[in-house]
């Protein structure tokens, strides 16, 4: 208490010389970019702009699904987006199925080089004008991600401040630490395997095979051969994911902490012709 009083007295004594530098500036309202996942948007409204959002979790926990959904939503909002792909793992088919507009998406393949990936993000951030930037480190070993020096994250945080850009970082383990305004930790729960009736098509010879071993869930028809413009990814299993949301208290973005379950679903829009 005495320390607070002393601080107040010092500020009052210096106010004539330094003006209002001790006054706290009013925090601006946080702008939000929806993710397109209803479960997350209901709770968080979306990803904060002008800040870093970290999405981390093990393999098959839904990190890329969440990233693709946010990317597709951003391009649908006519934002210019960039995907910095450290290990060249960006799948075009699933991105197209998610609804990503590639003409608004800049894809940078960094050839398995962390350094190039970070430099590319830095160039794009300082170039300005992008609404959504995704740094995909999902395939990088956890040890390498942990070894990333924190000055990179501070540099990104500084560059992105006061801009309408949302930067998300997909990692296997938490790495951004205090520089992230929002941390989403994803954990895979279990895979859901619907019984599958697959269409095996080889050139013009078509046949059907039935796999009834896994008979819980609904029956779905999955065309194996991509249709000319749709090119659905041959995803035959679904999975549940649990997400732990951690809000950075030092840089509050007006979001709530909590846990949410979401179910990335395969698009049911499959027709066989």
């Amino acid at each position: 208490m005495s320390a607070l009083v002393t601080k107040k007295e010092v500020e009052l004594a210096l106010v004539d010389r330094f003006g209002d530098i001790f006054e706290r500036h009013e925090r601006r309202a946080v702008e939000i970019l929806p993710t397109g996942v209803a479960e997350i948007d209901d709770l968080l409204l979306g990803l904060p702009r002008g800040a870093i959002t970290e999405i981390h979790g093990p393999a098959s926990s839904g990190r890329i699904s969440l990233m693709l959904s946010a990317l597709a939503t951003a391009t649908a909002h006519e934002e210019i987006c960039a995907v910095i792909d450290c290990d060249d793992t960006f799948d075009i088919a699933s991105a197209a199925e998610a609804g990503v507009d590639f003409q608004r998406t800049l894809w940078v393949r960094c050839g398995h080089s962390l350094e190039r990936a970070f430099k590319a993000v830095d160039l794009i951030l300082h170039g300005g004008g992008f609404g959504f930037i995704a740094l995909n480190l999902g395939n990088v070993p956890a040890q390498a991600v942990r070894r990333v020096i924190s000055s990179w994250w501070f540099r990104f945080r500084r560059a992105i401040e006061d801009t309408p850009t949302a930067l998300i970082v997909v990692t296997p383990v938490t790495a951004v630490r205090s520089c992230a305004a929002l941390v989403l930790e994803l954990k895979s729960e279990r895979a859901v395997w619907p019984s599958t009736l697959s269409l095996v098509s080889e050139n013009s010879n078509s046949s059907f095979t039935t796999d009834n071993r896994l008979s819980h869930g609904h029956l779905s028809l999955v065309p194996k051969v991509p249709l000319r413009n749709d090119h659905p990814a041959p995803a035959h299993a679904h999975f549940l994911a649990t997400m732990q949301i951690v809000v950075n208290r030092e840089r509050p973005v007006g979001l709530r902490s909590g846990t949410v379950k979401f179910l990335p679903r395969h698009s049911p829009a499959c027709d066989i012709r």
Partner: protein
Amino acid sequence: MFACIYSRSLAEWRQKRADNSAETGSPLVDLAFTFSPLVEQKSADTVVLDVSGQDLLFGSPNGSSDQVASDTNIAQEIFRQSTVAGLKVNVAVAANVDVAIHAARLIEGVTVIPAGDEPLVIGALSIKQIDHSLAAIEEKRAAEIQETFALWGLRTFGDLARLPLAGVAERLGQEGVRLQKLAQGKSDRRLNLICPPVGFVQSLELEHAISEVEPLSFILSRLLNQLCANLNEYALATNELQLALQLQTKSMHERTLTLPVPMRNHRTLLRLLLFDIEREPPPAPIIAVAITAKPVEPRASQTGLFIPLAPEPEKLEITLARLVKLVGAENVGSPEMLDTHRPDAFRMNRFNLNHRGKRKQQSERNPRSNQQPAIGKRQSVMGFRMFRPAWLAEVKTSSGQPIYIAARAKSFGKLSGRIVRASGPWRGSGDWWRADVWARDEWDMAVIDPKSSEGEVLCRVYRDLTTEQWFVEGVYD
């Protein structure tokens, strides 16, 4: 005073081509503009220029104010420069434009006609050689008038000039009057000026060869500065820059920089050129530099309050150039799926914001191309991490079902464990008519590694039917 330059060689060439249209970019025009900015191109072989006030440049050598001597010097200088340029020309200088034209066309060599002496000089010229277009008479009517002149016994300009004005007007009308004024050298008209040819080319020959980028950047900066100033003067921009570097080995190093949007900011162009040179440096020292800009209309963009943020085209180009320098041109761009069933078939296109407006029109024409148009109704799909290249795997099977997998990437990363659930196979094949035929059975597998704390890993595994090998294509994530 007016000087007319008539090129006989160009006239012969024009007769062969049967082309009377005045062409821009003629060597005569270039020659004329070296003497005066006031130039009229009468035809492809005839140009007229106003040489008034050039006494100080081409006056008489002894400093006298003799107009005839001054005009003679100008005419001879024009003739000399034409000879140097390889043109066979006639040059005439007169106070009247049309007199100068007739004299240049009909009198060989250099002709100087002092003011007032026009009837004496052109009076002896054949009336058949009179240029009816100067009196705005059509060819058909001109032929009729020439027949009339022949019936009257007129043979020279002087014969027509001496006829009574009232009689000519009564018989030939205003056309006859205009022709008589031409013959008398008393026509009164102004030059129909043309703009100097605009060439957006800047070049420089160097005294010493340059082998480093930094000194070259100063040269490029100077040339681009002038080039952009010229573009700005004509309210133009450029979308293509051609850089030609002459090397010490007598060879040329040429680069073409194509821009997605018209620009005329010399700093932006300089950076882009330097990035390009650094990416593909010339193999030898440079002794001459030339930059050519393709002039186009500048871009017009309408901004609005509700238009989402987009990178500025100039900044975006610089960012893309830096990214290309960092990771290579083939690794930067916007992907495009190819219309094939081959897995992971795509093409990397240049990232260009100009397509943004076309997207909506395309989706309206082809509703299938926009798979999930409604943002609110969008459904999440399973993401996939594609391994490029696919990991070679060893798969143990039991009764045709895979039960164990062990795979390792070339660089780092591995996947091994018990297969707790599998779905498949889904067979696909294609391109059997090509050398790179593909055929494979795909499986979706849930793998649990007992040594890892991670749960199930959902992966897509395929068996290449051409090589009978298993590969892990990627992981659902």
